[in-house]
């Protein structure tokens, strides 16, 4: 008997639906309808896809035995995704139902905070676990630490100093203005780079497949977060901006990664 892993139709379907959704959302973002009310509502189209991604990831996480390593890793990633979806729903509710600008800092930021930490910890746990199958960690650690340090230093000089010294910002706004860019590097970019460096050691080994999609997702989010924090600090962010495309793509990629993890966990047998 030999076993082999194939990417299932379910995974291809998730990728296809995500791609179609991204195309539709990009169209809405780049060419919004002339009716202002419709344009505002459609600006939150991405939220449905993020909720769907959270559901997919949670379903995959619960398909593993409670307590096993993959269950914990995917539960953390699912928690991060669900938390982002709740934050977005709170933001949309304030904007569309209460008809006032979403407060920032405000309730959604609590959920976005949980998102960054849960995603970062989940992915780092997954990456470090590969040490158990003799994947060497030294080079990935050195490269990730060096790049993260350089980015934090550059960001401190070019972005964070400006935020901290801006007299027009409240303490809470400054704290968020510092937290988001740093969290992008520490919890999104760093873990994404680290797990890519780790699973690249497997070559075509299927245990690495889900994490390529996850790393690509975190990279998309990381870029969106960086742009968002710059726009938010200057007060120019509006829901339905091209920045939202990065988050939507990121969470769709996480859902694809989760589905691939399910495929890897159910290999086909050939005798």
């Amino acid at each position: 008997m030999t076993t082999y892993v194939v990417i299932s139709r379910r995974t291809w379907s998730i990728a296809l639906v995500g791609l179609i959704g991204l195309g539709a959302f990009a169209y809405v973002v780049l060419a919004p309808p002339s009716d202002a009310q419709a344009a505002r509502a459609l600006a939150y189209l991405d939220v449905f896809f993020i909720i769907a991604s959270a559901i997919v990831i949670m379903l995959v996480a619960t398909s593993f035995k409670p307590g096993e390593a993959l269950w914990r890793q995917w539960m953390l990633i699912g928690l991060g995704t669900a938390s982002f979806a709740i934050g977005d729903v709170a933001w949309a509710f304030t904007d569309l139902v209460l008809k006032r600008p979403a407060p920032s800092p405000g309730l959604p930021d609590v959920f976005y905070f949980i998102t960054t930490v849960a995603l970062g910890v989940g992915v780092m746990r997954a990456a470090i676990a590969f040490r158990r199958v003799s994947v060497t960690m030294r080079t990935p650690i050195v490269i990730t630490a060096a790049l993260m340090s350089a980015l934090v230093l550059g960001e401190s000089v070019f972005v964070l100093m400006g935020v901290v010294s801006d007299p027009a910002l409240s303490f809470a706004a400054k704290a968020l203005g510092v937290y988001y860019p740093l969290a992008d590097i520490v919890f999104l970019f760093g873990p994404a780079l680290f797990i890519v460096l780790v699973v690249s050691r497997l070559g075509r080994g299927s245990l690495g497949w889900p994490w390529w999609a996850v790393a690509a997702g975190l990279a998309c989010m990381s870029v969106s977060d960086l742009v968002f924090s710059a726009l938010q600090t200057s007060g120019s962010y509006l829901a339905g901006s091209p920045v939202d495309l990065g988050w939507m793509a990121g969470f769709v990629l996480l859902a694809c990664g989760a589905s691939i993890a399910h495929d890897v966990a159910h290999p086909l047998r050939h005798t």
Partner: protein
Amino acid sequence: MAPLADDLRSALQPYLGAATAACVQSLAASLGRSADSLDAADLPALEGQLRASLSAVAAAGTVDTIIEDLRSRP
């Protein structure tokens, strides 16, 4: 009969890819053996080590399948 190490490499290759050789060596070392000196008598202990190592990165079902694959080899 093919050496156990070869069977182990074949069973792990689809999952661990390029990291297979290092993992097989490490598993053998954990039993106090070299990879090429593993034989059928080591299989029960090897299964335990395999389960402990792989469970960090693979689902329980995947580990069961790999062990079943290993046992089914002549």
